[in-house]
């Protein structure tokens, strides 16, 4: 469950934002999980609850909404957009490597049109905070 470390990062970043913006409590944290990293929504929700700080913290009651963002890769030389099929086809150690470090996809996938390994991960890389909402304090 290395996902626990990423869930902690999400809560830590949300707490930082709450402090910076002077919120009394965070009401909602929307998380996007890039499909490339293959973290499931239930797994991540479980991880968030494992590491969530207890009563009294600004994050105790936050509604953490997790959704998957599909993979979109864009080939730099030829402009082709691709990725969903290729990412789904990753198996075994390759899938595991990309689960830990999504950039390693560059070792395993190439553009279906021009075979280039020079592509951008436009969407669906890893764990991202889509938005944070809160209330109370001067930043509400």
């Amino acid at each position, binding site marked *: 469950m290395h996902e626990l470390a990423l869930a902690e990062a999400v809560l830590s970043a949300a707490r930082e934002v709450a402090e910076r913006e002077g919120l009394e409590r965070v009401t909602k944290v929307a998380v996007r999980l890039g499909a490339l990293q293959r973290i499931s929504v239930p797994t991540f929700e479980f991880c968030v609850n494992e590491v969530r700080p207890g009563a009294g913290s600004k994050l105790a009651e936050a509604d953490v909404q997790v959704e998957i963002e599909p993979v979109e890769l864009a080939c730099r030389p030829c402009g082709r957009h691709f990725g969903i099929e290729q990412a789904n086809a990753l198996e075994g150690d390759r899938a595991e490597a990309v689960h830990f470090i999504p950039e*390693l996809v560059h070792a395993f996938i190439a553009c279906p049109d021009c075979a280039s390994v020079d592509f951008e991960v436009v969407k669906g890389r890893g764990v991202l905070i889509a938005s944070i909402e809160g209330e109370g304090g001067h930043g509400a």
Partner: protein
Amino acid sequence: MVHDLDPRPSVIRDRLSGVARVVCVSAGKGGVGKSSVASTLALLGAEQGMAVGLLDLDLTGPTDHVILGARLGFPSEEYGIDPERHAGISFLSVAHFLGMDAAALRGGDVTNTLLELLAIARWGALDALVIDMPPGLGDTALDVHRYLPKAAHLVVSTPSRLACESVRRCLSLLSKQGAPVLGVVENMKAKADDSTEVAELAAAFGLRHLGSLPRDPDLESALGTPERVRATAFASALRPIATEIFGS
């Protein structure tokens, strides 16, 4: 109110909260012995009873696993990933994930990989984390300064004018950044070589010349066996520098 925020930078300080000091082995130049120095330094720290970590940030050309003879394969994961315990040190490299494959990484991918490693690795309590830097003055050098601003640099150069030319630019960057520099180590000094280039380079930046490591023909055959690496003349010359760095 906040949109598309990368959560990883926020957790890096926590992850390194048990790490007493971070030492980057830097040069700007390739092939001066950064990886040999970084790996051997970590081994010598362990020998001296320190808890030492080694992170190979030469993301497209990792070699520390070869020097250490470390097993490749995924590290174990619990509340994050646990660096591999090997030869008395805690070791993490992109090679653990990549094996023998090759991934060319553009700058943004380098930054992402570095942030991911820093966000998920659990180093625990360490007296020192040694970071093996890649050649060049690029994303890794800038990101280390940005995300690990307290990291101190041990700069390696050989006596060659070609090395000094690039190492000078590295020192110039570190100086502009106001990054702490522990000093300059001269590597691959031939017995007969009485050149003073590296000493002058250190002096030009007001830095200490920490010592010279001999060009050691026995280092190559020792690679892959930590106890043999520690027994080389190369390691012997590095030992007092290690004592100073880890003791300071």
